[in-house]
């Protein structure tokens, strides 16, 4: 179940991400669950602690206690900063110290609306045309799609490590690390 998007928004963002990082002989954004990463970020505060900073030091993928999934608590100031960024300043004085902030949630709502309700159903070329017509949103979603595909899976994307696997990247390797031979040899 999505944290932030409604069903239609979810389908539109998923379709858009599939154009940015398509599925070919290797998995793409769809298999990587990139939309869930974006949904997790926009809905970060739906859980406590919020999905902002994954825990450490280890994920368990190369040994050690798996702690990435225990997200850090935010102090009051960090919460203010991240809520402002995500939810926008909404006229709340303490969020407008540096002027009004349009939140990421709002930018997604607007961006999704300009892609059109039928975005997920129209042909690929039309999807690309609509994405290009909306450069600011395209830049934002591209940035997040990359984070969702190649970031740690604990943030919701890179499902089953598909983003790392198809490029041959091992990801976080602590506490194993690499041997001196692996570092110095071809």
């Amino acid at each position, binding site marked *: 179940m999505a944290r932030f998007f409604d069903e239609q928004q979810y389908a539109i963002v998923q379709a858009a991400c599939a154009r940015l990082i398509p599925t070919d002989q290797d998995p793409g954004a769809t298999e990587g669950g990139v939309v869930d990463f974006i949904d997790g970020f926009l809905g970060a505060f739906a859980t406590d602690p919020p999905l902002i900073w994954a825990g450490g030091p280890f994920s368990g993928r190369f040994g050690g206690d798996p702690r990435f999934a225990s997200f850090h608590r935010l102090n009051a100031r960090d919460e203010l900063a991240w809520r402002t960024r995500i939810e926008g300043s909404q006229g709340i004085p303490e969020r407008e110290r540096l002027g009004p902030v349009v939140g990421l949630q709002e930018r997604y709502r607007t961006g999704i609306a300009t892609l059109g309700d039928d975005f997920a159903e129209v042909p690929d070329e039309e999807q690309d045309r609509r994405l290009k017509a909306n450069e600011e949103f395209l830049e934002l979603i591209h940035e997040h799609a990359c984070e969702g595909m190649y970031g740690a899976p604990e943030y919701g994307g890179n499902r089953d490590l598909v983003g790392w696997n198809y490029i041959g990247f091992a990801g976080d390797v602590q506490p194993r690390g690499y041997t001196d031979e692996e*570092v110095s040899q071809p």
Partner: protein
Amino acid sequence: MSRDFDAIIVGSGPGGSTAADVLTSAGWSVCIFERGKNFLVNLEKPSELLYEFSNDEIKYWSRHFLGPDPWLEPRTFRMTPDDGDRLSIGEVNNLPATVGGGGTHADGKVPRFREDDFRVLSDLGPMEGTSLADWPLGYDEMEPFYAEAERLIGVAGEAGANPFAAPRKDPYPMPPGAPMYCAVVTSAAAERLGYHPYPGPTACNSVPYDDRPACNNCGFCGYFGCPIHAKGDPVASLRRALMSGKAELRPESMVSRILMENGRATGVEWIDAAGERHVERAGHVVLAAGATETPRLLLLSGLEHPEIGRNLMYHFQTLTFGQLPMRLHAHKGRSVTHLHDDFILINDEAQRAAKEAGLPWLKGGLVEHGGAAHPMLESKFYPWGPEHKDMMRESPMRDHMVGFTMQGEDMPQATNRIDLDPSIRDIHGLPVARITYKPHRHEIAASAHYGPKLEGILHEAGAVWARTATSPNVGAVIRQGSFTSSPIPASRHVVGTARMGTDPATSVCDAWGRLHQVPNVVVCDSSPFPTGAGYGPTLTLAALAIRNARAITT
């Protein structure tokens, strides 16, 4: 006057932590104020290490995990006053705001300066538009403090490997760690062209050292915190200070003002995590807030001296990248393992280039041999669509890419400065630091001279293409994927904003880092540097911190 501590230390980075270690060893009681959070060490005895850092691109690249959050604590930037009050608000050359400061983030190349770096003005002579000055001390005096700082931090290196290094009495505390494959390739090419690459002195354990393990080459080094405490971040010094029972460390505590009476500091005003203001008294105040925040704090405290904040220097970075046919796996290893110093020297060719540029002389800087490690960052550079997948599989901008960073020596200029922004406030309501910075044409000319030589090394190594950019960007704006080149320097080497000297009219600190105006305030970071050299500042600032902190106890 009642006082609670012998000294208050502002900032827990390499400078403040070193000062804390030195002062507590001398039996002083200290209170260390750090505005950032603590992920490093348990504050109660036995002060076990904390393990919160991780190999996580999202947390460190995209979400300001180590702070400062650019919305809570922004800085502002302009190139010259002609730009108006500011060009931008947000992140300007941020070093982490966290217990351990920038030491937690750095990939820790920690060479010593050379003898002539302490006397550029008298050796080379003045240059128009600069405020060059000699240091009030020389290498011979620094040598034992350099050696001590190398032992404290834990430096791995090979004495004698760099023919241009200043003489040293002792070997490095540890042998060099494993050379990265990309650096093996580029340093062999550099050698064939007659240059002198060497394994860089690095603040990462190559063997277990000081109760901390050897580095296991995880590759998430520069810009990340070390998950296993193998890095020479200041955790060892901080832990020793805490274990002495003489130190208290207060994270999330922002010093807002130095309190002064009759030309003496009496303590500080500080703001806790809930926003409450408090006062703490001490006999001395040690400033180690870093070369951006230290002058800001002096100005916030109402100190007036025309030189405060001036002569701000970074390193003018020449970034030369190329694509090699083979895979280089620069995600294995400690970010940078090899350096060469050839471009710091002034030879006939450099003199000719200087003459052509209408300059009396021209200096480059240290060259770091590195690669590109991480796919999330890489992916943002590529176009979207089917091409994205092909590029990611091919990896021209990561797995096949090598790169040099030349840390070009910046000239000091009085017009490059930190002051208080006239209207932008941080979350505490305090005016933020405003950076006014534009490189001198010396740096630009040096980069233009050495960039092609760096490309030459890459071609010698077999590069199919090689390209050079600079930071700050001085040409047309470059856009690639979500990257846009910027006039804000990317260099994290910040020095020179409270220069030291013997004349109180032209310098902020004396030769011992003490403020001329308020002698019980001692600066223990890189702000007192009169010139920046073409080397990272961290070992030198730690060595100075040992010297200056010890001087107040004797």
